């Protein structure tokens, strides 16, 4: 049976704080789940949830207090594991005295390619991230978006099977975000596993096969975005225009979930009341533009969890202060 792409086995990290009296703060608590080969996996959580800590543990930048993790069956302590992975750090910063081409050539040297293969790869990957024209420009003259793109190029330069991206869309304009999305989808088409942390939930919803939600260092749930959020319709949204000179029944115009922009109205009604509301609109000769079922989004789920996490933390603080 093939090993999963990534296995977290009770990964835990404590940080010591304080100068004289060292106190331990748990940043990551017993993280245990798996990511399968070929998945695009979203690692979600608010700032300070432990997402970057997890990625730093995987990269060997920090060491776990307890537990471990494996990538394609190899322990994170095994240097050979690093041949199989690519990593884009959050807000990447590279040697700014190098040009884009020199930077990629430098990283390619760690994989033992011949000079001809290095040249070919560097040119190919600069092209792939749209930086061919900036190949000879020093990185100190790169914009944030360009740095992010060269960062992605260095992460996938050696065709890794598993790619880790820490907040890859952060700080990018819509065009940049779309380019990153396209690269992630392209990697998926090639059968690679992509594990990316983000707090931009629409991106996760659009791209991910599965997601994990982390709050306060604790795993809150793992599953497909559709499994994690209930697919049940909680309301129906009706978008319509009122005819000139015709007034709307007060049950619709003064509905508590009604908003008006110019002559357009948007109301949310329970599913059971939909037909009654449509009858009212027909009687008023309103022009119905759309009727859409509303389901909870990943964002709603996320906010609920974060709110719960904060409440738990608040309760714990109150108990501690008594």
């Amino acid at each position: 049976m093939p090993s999963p792409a990534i296995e977290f086995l009770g990964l835990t990290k404590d940080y010591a704080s304080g100068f004289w009296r060292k106190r331990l703060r748990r940043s990551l608590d017993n993280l245990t789940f798996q990511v399968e080969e070929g998945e695009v996996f979203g690692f979600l959580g608010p700032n300070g949830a432990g997402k970057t800590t997890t990625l730093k543990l995987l990269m060997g930048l920090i060491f776990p207090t307890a537990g471990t993790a494996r990538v394609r069956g190899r322990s994170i302590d095994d240097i050979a594991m690093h041949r199989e992975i690519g990593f884009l750090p959050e807000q990447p910063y590279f040697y700014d005295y190098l040009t884009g081409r020199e930077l990629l050539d430098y990283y390619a040297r760690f994989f033992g390619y011949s000079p001809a293969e290095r040249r070919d790869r560097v040119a190919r990957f600069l092209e792939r991230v749209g930086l061919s024209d900036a190949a000879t420009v020093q990185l100190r003259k790169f914009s944030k978006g360009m740095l992010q793109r060269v960062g992605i190029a260095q992460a996938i330069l050696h065709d890794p099977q598993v790619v880790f991206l820490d907040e890859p869309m952060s700080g990018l304009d819509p065009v940049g975000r779309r380019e990153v999305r396209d690269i992630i989808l392209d990697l998926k088409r090639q059968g690679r596993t992509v594990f990316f942390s983000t707090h931009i939930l629409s991106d996760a919803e659009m791209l991910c096969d599965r997601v994990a939600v982390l709050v306060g260092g604790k795993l809150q749930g793992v599953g497909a975005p559709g499994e994690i959020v209930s697919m049940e319709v909680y309301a129906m949204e009706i978008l319509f225009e009122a005819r000139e000179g015709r007034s709307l029944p007060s049950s619709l115009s003064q509905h508590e979930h009604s908003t008006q922009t110019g002559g357009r109205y948007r109301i949310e009604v329970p599913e059971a009341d939909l037909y009654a509301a449509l009858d009212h609109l027909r009687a008023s000769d309103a022009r119905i533009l759309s009727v859409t079922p509303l389901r909870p989004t990943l964002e709603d789920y996320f906010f609920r969890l974060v709110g719960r996490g904060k409440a738990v933390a608040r309760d714990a603080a109150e108990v501690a202060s008594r």
Partner: protein
Amino acid sequence: MSVIPGVVAVNTFREAVRDRVLYNLIFFALMMTGAAILVGGISIGIERMVIINLGLSAISIFGLVMAIFIGVGLVHKEMEKRTLYSLLSKPIRRWEFLAGKFAGLLLTLVVNTSLMTLGLAAALYYVGRPFVLSDATILVAVYFILLQLALVTALALFFSCFSSPLLSTLFTLGMYIAGIFSTDIHDVGMFTSSLAIQWGARLLYYLLPNFHNFNAIAAAAHGESIPFALIWQNTAYAAVYVALVLIAASAIFSGRNLK
């Protein structure tokens, strides 16, 4: 044999060149030109000695400043700017990174020192005397300076693995100064009846790098020959000391959580 330290070393050298570190050569060239003109006019018969003394001292000081100030920043800069994050995600061990950083700065110092030695030779040529065999001592003195710089670089790298650049600078400078007087520290132990002080002095003598034996500037200025035994002894001493310091630095750095 891993080629990875070599890859890191070449990049470290390239960084130094692009950060205009070698611009110190301009100051050195101006100083040697000025000294050659001045000395040629006022000190009849001792021009050679003055130029060699001045030139070798300047090579040593310029090198020391570079070794300490760049050395303490080698690791710290990569951590602070987080360039280490993407680098260590590649198949590179931490000791390979450290060895590469050390070799890269050493390469920079060798190039810098070689160019300054050429400047010194030009100044000697200017004050008017054909080169003789005993001038080879100057090259030995330069070689000893390079060995010292290798030791200082290793120490700077070692301290920077667990302390801030400011503290690392102070520690390295302190070790250098104490190392110059290490023979005196040993002698202090000999003249006391306290066993504790005797042992303490002896321990310090063996722990501190012995820079005393690396100073051949006076011998070079006076055209005295330097025994081969001393050359071998200093080479072996520096190689072993540097290796031990780098192993200790690697052990510390390999277990460190990066911010």
